[in-house]
């Protein structure tokens, strides 16, 4: 459903993406893993048509995406960013309803959909009357997720969705996302720097470094047959130190 073919981009003299290719099959979750500056967010933005590829192309449902031509993405792609990316002047409900208003849904249809989503996300509907500033980080993230899901898009693109949360809320939401992705059968492309998150959510992983793809495959592939020492290094850096493993 998502295909990236030899995409390269540069910001001035900096190479942001260097000949990147990947495929995300329908109904699977693909994780873009890497540290900050590795180009994973830029790649997501190329797929969304927010950034133009200098060479190569990104395709969604077989259609080439460019900043000038991404109309066909509307309603087909849900987009979630760090901290939710909520509009501060709209209530939770206002934020969740916005994509549906933009495509002209009726009030009744929107209200019914929001109620259904709140149930699905396990979110108290009364809390939707609050403004983002009145919600906790985890609540904001759930509202952001509901907003991405409101039009029931087949594709879900998430950019460090849990990046700003404290560890307990984060673990909680990771489990939640895993459950949702499985239940909804969405095609997901998720950006994270967190190996644990990648393992938990991703059926396949693309590890990136300095704008280039280091290795693609399942976590087992990466762990067992690392393409280069960096893979082991990256995966190992986030593992608990050996003396603590006994406690886990």
């Amino acid at each position: 459903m998502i295909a990236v073919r030899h995409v390269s981009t540069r910001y001035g003299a900096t190479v942001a993406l260097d000949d990147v290719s990947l495929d995300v099959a329908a109904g699977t979750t693909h994780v873009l893993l890497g540290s900050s500056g590795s180009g994973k967010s830029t790649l997501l933005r190329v797929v969304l048509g927010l950034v133009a590829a200098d060479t190569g192309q990104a395709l969604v449902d077989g259609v080439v995406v460019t900043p000038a031509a991404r109309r066909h993405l509307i309603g087909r792609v849900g987009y979630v960013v760090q901290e939710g990316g909520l509009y501060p002047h709209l209530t939770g409900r206002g934020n969740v309803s916005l994509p549906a208003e933009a495509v002209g849904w009726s009030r009744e249809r929107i209200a019914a959909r929001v109620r259904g989503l709140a149930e699905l996300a396990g979110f108290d509907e009364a809390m939707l009357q609050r403004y983002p500033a009145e919600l906790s980080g985890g609540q904001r993230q759930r509202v952001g997720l509901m907003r991405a899901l409101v039009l029931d898009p087949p594709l879900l693109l998430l950019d460090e969705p849990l990046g700003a949360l404290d560890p307990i809320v984060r673990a909680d939401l990771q489990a939640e996302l895993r459950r949702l992705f499985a239940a909804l059968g969405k095609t997901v492309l998720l950006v994270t720097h967190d190996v644990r998150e990648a393992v938990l959510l991703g059926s396949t992983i693309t590890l990136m470094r300095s704008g280039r793809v280091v290795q693609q495959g399942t976590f087992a592939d990466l762990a067992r047959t690392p393409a280069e020492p960096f893979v082991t290094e990256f995966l190992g850096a986030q593992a608990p130190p050996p003396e603590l493993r006994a406690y886990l």
Partner: protein
Amino acid sequence: MTARLAVLALLGVVVVVAAPAGATDGVRVGSKSFTESYVLAELAAQVIEAAEVGRVERRVGLGGTGIAYRAVAHGSVDLYPEYTGTISRAILKDAAVESLAAIRAGLRPLGLTISDPLGFENTYALAVRADAARRLGLERISDLAGHPELRGAFTSGFLERDDGWPGLRRHYGLGLAVVRTIEHALAYQALSSGTVDVIDVFSTDGRLTRPGTVVLRDDRHFFPDYAAVLLARTDFVEAHPRAWAALERTLVGRIDGAAMIRLNALADLQGRSARQVAARFLGREVTDAEERARLIREMGTLTLEHLGLVAAALSLAVLVGLPLGILAARSAVLGQVELMAVGVLQTIPALALLCFMIPLLGIGTLPALVALFLYALLPIVRGTYTGLATLDRQLLEIADVLGLAGWRRLARLELPLASVSVLAGVKTAAIWTVGTATLAAFIGGGGYGTLIVRGLALDDARTILAGAVPAALMALLFHGLFEVVDRWLVPRGLRLVMSRHG
């Protein structure tokens, strides 16, 4: 928020449409902003009122010959008191045009004419202390030539103008021991205290009624004729023959120098209003109580005028400035050009901008409104532009992904998110406009400035304060009003964010 903005805009349109309703079909009498001009204009107004040719509107206190002349030439006033010398030099720009016939001939192509002289001249003159005059035998200016030990103190205008001290010195062959610059207001005091011996005065100055000052006769006729006349539009004279006849009957040749000095003294030294002074000359009496009651009514009118000017100019500026700001934020090139253009407008001094309006729009409310509107544009355009240009990029990208574009994006996301900056611009514009609107009085635009201009002319601090204090209070009021408007227009969610971070 968009609905609320629409309500405000609609309110603005109503105010704008209602504001210039002050147009009149009566006779409009103007004056410049000094005591004698106020008094003469009031005399003319009362004479016309007595002749019962219709309502008389007083557009007095116009800031100087340039503005008063443009007002009468443009037809914003029908007549105002002027001096023959000023007409030749400042209006016809030919000092050689001296006779009444020559002046009338020069004015005819401009659609203007003058009355016969009212009977006095207001010209520069030299004054000395009475005891010194007696002691040294000073009666004429030429007598000064024999006393080079005397000390002179002259106003800066008189010192520099060729029809002032430089010319006078050559003409009479004078030499004074010391020649200093002095403020007009302080000259009489300096003379009577003996600090200086010779000062320049206006020949009809009210202070000449005080004993101890003697005016020297211009025995070799150096000072040009500044005979007081009424400068009027020819079409007014033709349309209102009865009014013009009444003016000629009652005022022409009826006010000699001594009478004018007394009238000026009544206003300048005894605190009588121009209306009271004029009424007394015409044989009536306006009591202080009547005058106070009229002043209170006038305060009400001025408040409404000021408020109307500010509200109308501000509403117009919002209606125009907001779209301009949005346009500027859309295109980098257009944005720079636009901000530069409104920035240049801002650098034109307010009074100059008001003067530029006169040839286009005459005097009164409309030109003042347009000038204030132009002034209010910059903060509004800049506030809108800044607010929109500094929006969170991520939030805009999400709007892109959601397919929110055009009006819906602007109304639903961009303007509400930029509302704090937009309103800050409008608030700055409002407070500036309240202040700048006091200058509207110089071109007959009304408002609190009327009192400030009058107070400055009469050298009367109480009258100045009567205009300045309410203007300051109104600025405070607008400040408070915008606290309320902020609460109403800035979305609650944004205020929450600000209170967390603030």
